[in-house]
């Protein structure tokens, strides 16, 4: 059989036909999965269009924030935290990022056959402690056990509801030109802590996860009347992915100053060694706040006065139309900040 010359096409690789681990990495692949496969299948709904950390729904006049998240992490206990603390703090933080006071959580456990009961008990006690530390109650739950080999010891899903206390919508679309970008502390600790404990990488010091509940500092900003336009906790994909997502949704250019972004020397060293960019390394206890420029300094000093925001810094500002992020480097030159493709992978040499 011969092909006609105009039928010959260049071989362009199609997208992957199956889910890759990289689809869960918080980068472009994950966003395409959400925007092209998941959201369209669910039909159009204005709550989903903003794709924020949680949804705000009005129920008989009350504005409630509602969110859910699933937690998979290996090892289950790592320097600075464990899967139970992640499961509480992650959902509490998603609620806080909607400008809400977290009220109650659910906890769904998927336990792998063979998990030592002592370990499960230890993690459930941690779950309870984390909830009381974050000021929420775990009011309902579920337990399933799966065959050995079908789970990674323990998966936890939590959902949460909170009551919105922010007077205006706190979401990417509310970001305005001139807004100050505040970061609540140093970045990259959680990702490096997990990688180090998972891969047995020994650094000179033990780097601990930054895992922490963030509702208290957020509520403090709101209670003080700071004009907060958008909040986002930094998780997978790190600060870089959070800024890019917000810039895109807001349709604005965000400019940040690399030297203003706090990175601890040990985290910086580990990143240099592994060829990772701290900008994209995961966090579990940090957030960015977009606030009106006139409130920026007050917000910064409020944050710095809080134990969860001691290392807060003003890292940049929102510019005009754009939908992208630029970073001014230490030499004064600008570079683009894009979403990572999938997971960050260590380099060869």
């Amino acid at each position, binding site marked *: 059989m011969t092909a006609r010359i105009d039928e010959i096409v260049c071989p362009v690789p199609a*997208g992957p036909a199956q889910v890759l681990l990289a689809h869960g990495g918080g980068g472009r692949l994950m966003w395409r999965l959400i925007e092209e496969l998941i959201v369209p299948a669910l039909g159009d709904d204005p709550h989903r269009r903003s794709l924020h950390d949680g949804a705000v729904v009005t129920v008989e006049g009350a504005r409630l924030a509602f969110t859910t998240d699933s937690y998979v992490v290996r090892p289950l206990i790592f320097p600075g935290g464990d899967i139970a603390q992640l499961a509480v703090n992650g959902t509490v933080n998603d609620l806080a990022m909607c400008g809400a006071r977290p009220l109650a959580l659910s906890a769904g456990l998927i336990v792998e056959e063979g998990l030592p009961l002592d370990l499960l008990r230890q993690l459930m006690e941690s779950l309870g402690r984390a909830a009381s530390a974050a000021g929420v109650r775990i009011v309902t739950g579920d337990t399933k056990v799966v065959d050995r080999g079908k789970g990674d010891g323990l998966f936890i899903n939590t959902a949460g509801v909170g009551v919105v206390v922010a007077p205006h919508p706190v979401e990417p679309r509310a970001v305005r030109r001139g807004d100050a970008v505040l970061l609540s502390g140093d970045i990259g600790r959680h990702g490096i802590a997990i990688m180090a404990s998972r891969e047995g990488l020994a650094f000179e010091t033990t780097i601990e996860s930054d895992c922490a509940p963030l509702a208290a500092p957020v509520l403090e900003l709101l209670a003080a009347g700071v004009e907060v336009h958008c909040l986002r906790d930094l998780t997978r994909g790190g600060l870089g992915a959070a800024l890019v997502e917000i810039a895109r949704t807001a349709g604005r250019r965000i400019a940040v100053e690399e030297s203003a972004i706090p990175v601890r020397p040990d985290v910086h060293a580990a990143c*240099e060694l592994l060829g990772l960019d701290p900008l994209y390394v995961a966090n579990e206890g940090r957030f960015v706040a977009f606030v009106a420029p006139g409130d920026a300094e007050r917000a910064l000093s409020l944050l710095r006065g809080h134990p969860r925001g001691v290392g807060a810094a003003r890292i940049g500002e929102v510019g005009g139309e754009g939908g992208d992020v630029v970073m001014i480097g230490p030499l004064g030159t600008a570079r683009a900040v894009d979403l990572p493709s999938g997971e960050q992978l260590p380099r060869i040499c």
Partner: protein
Amino acid sequence: MKFVDEFRDGAAARRYARAIAAVTTRPWTMMEVCGGQTHAILRFGLDAFLPRGVTLIHGPGCPVCVTPLELIDKALVLAARPGVAFCSFGDMLRVPGSAGDLQAVKAAGGDVRIVYSPLDAVRIAGEHPDREVVFFAVGFETTAPAVAAAVMQAAAGGLRNFSLLVAHVLVPPAMEAILSSPRSRVQGFLAAGHVCTVMGYAAYEPIARAYRVPIVVTGFEPLDLLQGILMCIRQLEGGRAEVENQYARSVRREGNLSAQRLMTEVFEVIPRAWRGIGEIPKSGLALRPPYAHFDAEQRFGLTVPGAPEPAECISGLILQGVHAPPECGVFGTRCTPDHPLGAPMVSSEGACAAYYRFRGPHLEEGRA
């Protein structure tokens, strides 16, 4: 961070820019050999510090990029084989073979593991005597000594389930191949500092003489690169073609002799095909006969059909410095890090990936 921030100082960079402008009287084109240098140049926007007419072109120093398609296809076949645990540096997982990549093999059930050191693969082999553990030995002279050490450790431990898919390549023969090409625009080289840390730089002296090109062994931080460029332009302007060492805090002329001894013990030099460039004499490493039983290609009798490169991908010309990524017609459109047509778009040392990552898909210029 100590010993890093000092080399990223803006005021010092501007002093170098003034010094470079002061010595430059004509246009010059230099090639930085290593992909790590390319990424630093794009990340820190170093071209903004160079006078008009001074051009940096990007060299072949991305080990992932130059690994031939055939070897990647062999890796995909091996990784998909039941009973094999295929260990690789993370960088290799997204590199497209002719049918998919290692990431996809993993998703389809292949036992693909990311390791940080070849010694991790030896450890895995020791812990899993029931599995054939294959390490994808990719890299330049920088990673070869650690791989050699792993082979010697496996030999000493009597491991029978450990083998290597060897893709090691050597830098100086590639520099010579580029200079021999009639299309070469290279007037001076910034040689790869890490390669020279291991190998020293005596091997570059005959190249500098034969081709009349200055070669400056250069580091990876912004000030290293600017100083290397200054040293190279001084030679060009003065009509000199010598080997100079900018990266003296790491590199000695003779290199790291114990690392070289390990390499020589385990490996021998062979001709090797470079993806996008073709076969280069004396440019690759293979296991010496006493270690040949660790060769995965022999152990598994691997043959794969030859496959053509995607027609639109000009990575061969990019790797030789004939074209820069922005000159490629499919950059940022049909070729992106999510759907790469060639390896330079995915590797953390690839030139296309550097432009995409730091200039964006639309290649915006530095906006300092």
